[in-house]
């Protein structure tokens, strides 16, 4: 294979991986927009969702389809409890305090999952076909390609929904100016719950996809930290920017994997985020300065 061909192949695989990143990023941005916090528990929410899927599909032998539905319902329920019990009482508190709460929630979820399912890898039923997709003579792994397609459909659907629906208008209004949104009769607290539900959905789907592409481990959610770096890179208040950044990071990881030792793969998102923030504190596509932590 020629170096150019290899470069193209890695690029495509990387961008395909970026689809899931974009999906996770969307969940993070929605919560940021409504609750003004970085949700550091996003990765654990993903991971927990994947275990819900495992429990429903394998332990209770419901199969992948019903398993997915059960996982979605449980994930939404957990997100609503988190929002109600831990986030809502923190409204109006300093940014860093709320961020620390999300950290804490993440640790609790990790602890509980460790207690129930243990530290070892589990196999979940394959919902994605392995058969590779050939683009010309470029080989794209089947699972990655299909996960990408699903992620893109969900992301595009959600963005269109937020862009064109009345609920989307309410969400954007509440994010832009909560008091004025209230003055329009919008129940801002319900909007916040609603974004946690949406984040639970993107988290659940991305978690199950990740568990399919790789395996199901308690570390599954760590990737969300890279995504958080991505999100900061894209600019927290630009959904479009965040998505593009998701693909860029996926690509970058693949390309550094091609040229550099694997250790670099883990840190490239952070290095890139750091460089971008030094040059452009608002992120690549953001408009307002992010509160510094």
């Amino acid at each position, binding site marked *: 294979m020629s170096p150019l061909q290899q470069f193209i192949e890695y690029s495509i695989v990387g961008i395909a991986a970026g689809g899931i990143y974009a999906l996770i990023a969307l969940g993070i941005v929605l919560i940021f927009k409504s609750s003004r916090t970085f949700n550091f528990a996003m990765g654990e929410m993903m991971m927990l969702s994947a275990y819900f899927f495992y429990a429903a599909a394998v332990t209770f032998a419901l199969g992948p389809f019903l398993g997915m539905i059960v996982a979605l319902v449980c994930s939404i329920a957990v997100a609503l409890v988190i929002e109600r019990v831990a986030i809502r009482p923190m409204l109006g508190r300093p940014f860093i305090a709320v961020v620390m709460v999300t950290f804490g929630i993440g640790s609790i979820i990790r602890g509980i999952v460790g207690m129930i399912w243990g530290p070892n890898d589990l196999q979940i039923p394959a919902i994605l076909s392995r058969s590779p997709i050939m683009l010309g003579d470029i080989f794209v792994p089947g699972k990655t390609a299909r996960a990408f397609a699903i992620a893109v459909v969900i992301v595009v659907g959600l963005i269109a929904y937020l862009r064109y629906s*009345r609920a989307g*208008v309410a969400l*954007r209004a509440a994010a832009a100016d909560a008091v004025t*949104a209230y*003055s*329009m*009769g*919008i129940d801002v607290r319900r909007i916040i719950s609603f974004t946690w539900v949406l984040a639970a959905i993107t988290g659940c789907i991305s978690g199950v996809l990740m568990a399919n592409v790789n395996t199901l481990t308690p570390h599954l959610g760590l990737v969300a930290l890279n995504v958080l770096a991505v999100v900061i890179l894209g600019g927290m208040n630009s959904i479009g920017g965040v998505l593009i950044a998701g693909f860029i990071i996926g690509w970058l990881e693949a390309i550094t994997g091609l040229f550099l030792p694997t250790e670099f793969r883990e840190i490239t998102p952070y290095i890139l985020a750091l460089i971008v923030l030094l040059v452009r504190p608002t992120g690549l596509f953001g408009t307002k300065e992010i509160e510094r932590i």
Partner: protein
Amino acid sequence: MAAVLEVKDLEVVYQGVIQALTSLSLTVPEGAIVTLLGANGAGKTTTLKAISGFLPLEDGRVTRGSITIGGQDLLKLAPHQIVRRGIFQVREGRHVFSEMTVEENLIAATFAQRAARSRKEAFDEVYNYFPILSQRRHQAAGYLSGGEQQMLAIGRALVADPEMILLDEPSLGLAPLIVKEIFEIIARINREKRVSMLLVEQNAVIALKYASYGYVIESGRTVLEGTTEKLSADQDIQKFYLGVEAHEAA
């Protein structure tokens, strides 16, 4: 539905220590335009925030007094419930959603509607009062002129179809001609739709012209009230709010 708004002996404290209102009372009868005058920091906006239930959002609290409409206690309701009860506030500084289009701003206000009304019917009414908004409907609200933004802010109130509109300094930062145009439309809305208005203004000349009754507040308490004819003739009002020179009044 005798929608009389009554504020009685209101005391408001911010952050547990800053007393913004000490004893404020006012009444807005059905269908009337009542104005609330006072210097900067007198407590005008705070009064409106208390009525709309916004105080908790800013760490403020009503510590004494009552606010009722048609006998119903408003202090027990959340902000979105108060709007849906028919009291719509057009906030000081207009607060249009600048990154959303004119039409999306109006869509946001449909959440305040009490009775179902088709979007077309509601928007047509807005565009009838403010034709310029119709031309700009797909434009981001942030690119509108100050006057157009004020029109949009009042247009959102029209979408809600309220019993009462609280207007906080609609003349703020606008050229006299635009101010006159906007007040003419406010008066028309009041007349044609029987919407009562509580009008907060720094511009006492225009407020006294369009309102029928007025209250003057100083450091959080009502110090003077009366029909606007009576207030316009008052020497202190002439001196402090209408800028009439002392020798003219003497």
